[in-house]
């Protein structure tokens, strides 16, 4: 982008650092999703991307456009809100489904029960 040349050095450094941190965290999260072995471990990895990964990039974006347009640009807060609200739903649904399936099928690597409020493990 041609406008990027107008950016002051301090801002450019800060923005780059934030973008790099965000992207790096997301990358680590994705790599973890690929590498980790069990479903319950893997489900944690992408949260890196959806929390601090997104956060870093969004903060960078806010900073960049606020400096460029010399006014506070805060649209990204909405994105952060949506991502924060929606991703947990997906992950919770996935985790619950996996947990449920493993318990009813009596699979070996089920996480232990935390309380008595958990459905039985045997088939009907």
């Amino acid at each position, binding site marked *: 982008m041609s406008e990027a040349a107008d950016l002051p050095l301090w801002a450019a450094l800060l923005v780059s650092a934030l973008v790099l941190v965000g992207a790096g965290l997301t990358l680590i999260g994705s790599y973890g999703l690929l590498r980790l072995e069990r479903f319950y471990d893997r489900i944690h990895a992408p949260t890196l991307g959806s929390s601090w990964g997104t956060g870093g990039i969004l903060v960078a974006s806010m900073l960049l456009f606020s400096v460029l347009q010399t006014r506070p640009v805060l649209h990204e807060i909405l994105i952060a809100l*949506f991502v924060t*609200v*929606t991703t*947990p*739903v997906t992950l*919770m*649904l996935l985790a*619950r489904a996996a947990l*449920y399936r493993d318990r*009813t099928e009596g699979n070996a690597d089920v996480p232990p029960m935390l309380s*008595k*409020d958990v*459905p*039985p493990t045997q*088939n*009907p």
Partner: protein
Amino acid sequence: MTDDTLLISMVVLPFVGAIIAAFLPTMARNAESWLAGTVALAALGCAFLAYPAIAAGGALRAEIPWLASFGLTLAFRMDGFAWLFAMLVSGIGFLVVLYARYYMSPEDPVPRFFSFFLAFMGSMLGIVLSGNLIQLVIFWEMTSIFSFLLIGYWYHNASAREGARISLTVTATGGMALLGGVLLLGHIVGSYDLDEVLSSGNLIRNHPLYLPALILILLGAFTKSAQFPFHFWLPNAMAAPTPVSAYLHSATLVKAGVFLMARLWPVMAGTPEWFWLVGVAGLSSLLIAAYFAIFQQDLKGLLAYSTISHLGLITTLLSLSSPLGAVAAIFHMVNHATFKASLFMAAGIIDHETGTRDMRRLSGLFRFMPITATLAMVASAAMAGVPLLNGFLSKEMFFAEAIETHVPSILDTVTPYVAVIASLFSVTYSVRFIQAVFFGPPPVDLPRTPHEPPFWMRLPVSLLVLSCLVVGAIPGRTIEPFLRLGVTSVLGEATPEFSLAVWHGLNVPLVMSVIALVGGALLSFALKRYLATSRDGPPFFRRVKGQRIFDRLMALVANDGPRFLERYLSTRRLQPQLRLLVAAAILAAFLPLWRQGPGLGGLTFPPVFDPIFTLVWVVGTVCAVIAAYQAKFHRLAALALLGGAGLSVCISFVWLSAPDLALTQLLVEIVTTVLILLGLRWLPKRVEGAMPVPLSLTTRLQRLRDLILAVLAGLGMMLLSYAVMMRPAGQTIGAYFLERAYTEGGGTNVVNVILVDFRGFDTLGEITVLAIVALTVFALLRRFRPAPDSIPPPMQQQIQRKFDVAAPDRDDGATLTDYLYVASVIMQWLFPIVIVLALYLFLRGHDLPGGGFAAGIAMTSAFIMQYMAVGTRWLEDRLRVLPLVWMGFGLLLATATGLGSWLFGYPFLTSHSRYLEIPLIGEVPAATALLFDLGVFSLVLGATVLMLIAIAHQSIRRIGPARAANEAEET
């Protein structure tokens, strides 16, 4: 008042009245009657006003351009004959309205009655005053439809429904034939204008197409006038309220047939074909119906058959092709209308005051209702042809014509004998009508104690009977000038000298009359004892019922025939149907291509593919192929993979810079996948081991055949699309749209401007189709009965329930409610957010990707999420989900926006755009297309939510008791 307004208002007024009548309150019997009576009187007044001009010897004409490019104009034309009929239709219409006011019970929904009645009157006046043959056929069909509605007025009555259905089938089929005949006639003459047709008699009679045209037109006329062998609908139509019968079967509906025959008489009569076709139908109706009428036990049934017989008389007179015959026919049309209307009304009074129409139960009513009895006696004397009454005059003219020789043949020879016998029968049933009802011992156990009807109910009968008397006694002073006017307008130069005197001297017709009168009276006394107890219908012929033959025929055409065809030409199984469909599609595409020679028409595959784009497509293709492979046994996987294929299409749209399409595709893909996912639960489970493990050779071959068919069709589609899309586009209208989108549509999103503005009419059509599809899906799913193994709750729910029941501290269903509690709360929070998104998509639509369709789908996804998060019951307790209302609102709004442009004198669906200054927000672009888009939005939302509901309600539907018992037994 000018001629134009006079004629047009005569036809238009009744329809306007019909619309007003439909919207009056149910109880407004008086208001309705006043309205209908005023309209009928106004029509009558118009006819009066037109009299001087017509008496001066001219025909009034009024024309409105209609489809000028097809040479069709709305032409209204009133000559003497049409005037005579218009007087009858409106005059008797008025009397019937007066009568109906007192006849209809306060419980009957009168707005419907008077609305149909007025519309029928308008259609009848339309037939009479049409100056264009096509227009005449249209009004003709309208009389069929409105008579159907009138006959079926008491639709809680099975016989009314039946009668209405039969009459509609017969008369509308006749109307279809008539349309064919009229088209032929128009082809022969070169114009549909009545004046031109009437002036080309020789051309028509000598044309090779004369006979087909004649047969088709006569089919129309005979079915309408209930001529043998199409007569059977008329007795069935007696289930109608009596005012309807009095109107339809005296002056209007059945007279339309003979009206048309008389109208076309100058140009079509005079040939042997005419003589034979019309003569045979007329004579047989005259004789057979008169015979049948004697043996009816129902008052109205007797009158119905006598109507057929009298129409047969008119038809016979017209068949003779002699001018004097035509005079007598026209005269008898008028006479029959007056005495038959009064007789029907009298029968209605008897029915109304005694509660029955069965002549075996009625007797000696003279002492209870002497005035009505006298009136009925005079009217039936007119029907029998007693001297000094109008029926006598036209019957004498008929006899005089019958003894003349017109076309030397057997038919001509037997005519006088048939005439006398039929006339004798007519005397018999007239005497019987009077004798059985009014004389004899007082009636026993009638449903009601008989007494005289209110004065106003008797008044119409009295007026009609008075006219019978006056015309019959002094015809020369009363009816003759009008009759002469009507006859002259039909016959023109050929009008014969005739005189309407009561006494013509001692001649053969008089002798015939005397024989008929005396013989008929004797016969009625001879049959008196038999008829007092006999069953309904004539001996021997009782079993031969036209209606039964008709029913057989209908069953053959509508039921057995198709079933036979289905059995031998088709199948109910979906697989062969699909196979045939695909095979036919392949053939249809292949044949024209084969003629051109195979090949891509000079196209070559481009040497370089963009690697990333190719990768997207490879992924999409792989997804699609695996989905097809998995579709049968792993539906969930197949569905997920289909979503993958859809996403690759979506990415392609983005790649090819079509963000609108991509956005819509993405949303549609999401909603469709979720809807199908919800539906998966109801599909039957996989049956393990249904097939023997080494598959038989036949099965393998079948599968191979299906695979080849599928691959062929798929490859063919691919090649076709490739060949079309890779061709240089040539001259398209795209550039036009790009150029004009902002200047004329006021939007920078060309796609949306095309959808809601340039091609708004297409969009209107499409959303209508969408609405229909949604309703169809709903109708199908509403009656959907899932496979037995899908009815109980899914296994997961069963396990959870078992756990709840076993644990002492848990309520039944608690696990299900709590299991995804956090997630469901978050999903509830998302509702407003998605609504904002939909609003955003909607508002930016005119200038940026988005629009009503995408917004509608986005909004639907909000609803789907709520249904999934909290369940159907909870949601519908708290949120009003009214998809039908939304759909209706959408359609209405879109149409109304389109119609709105008419108010400003622009064509349908012209949009207007400008900038509006809104406080706080500033200047915003606004276009009327936004309203149209709101309609699209609302309809899409309604349609999709309707389908969602159809699926969602499956899970909360209770199984019927019988089925539940079955299930319990099995487990």
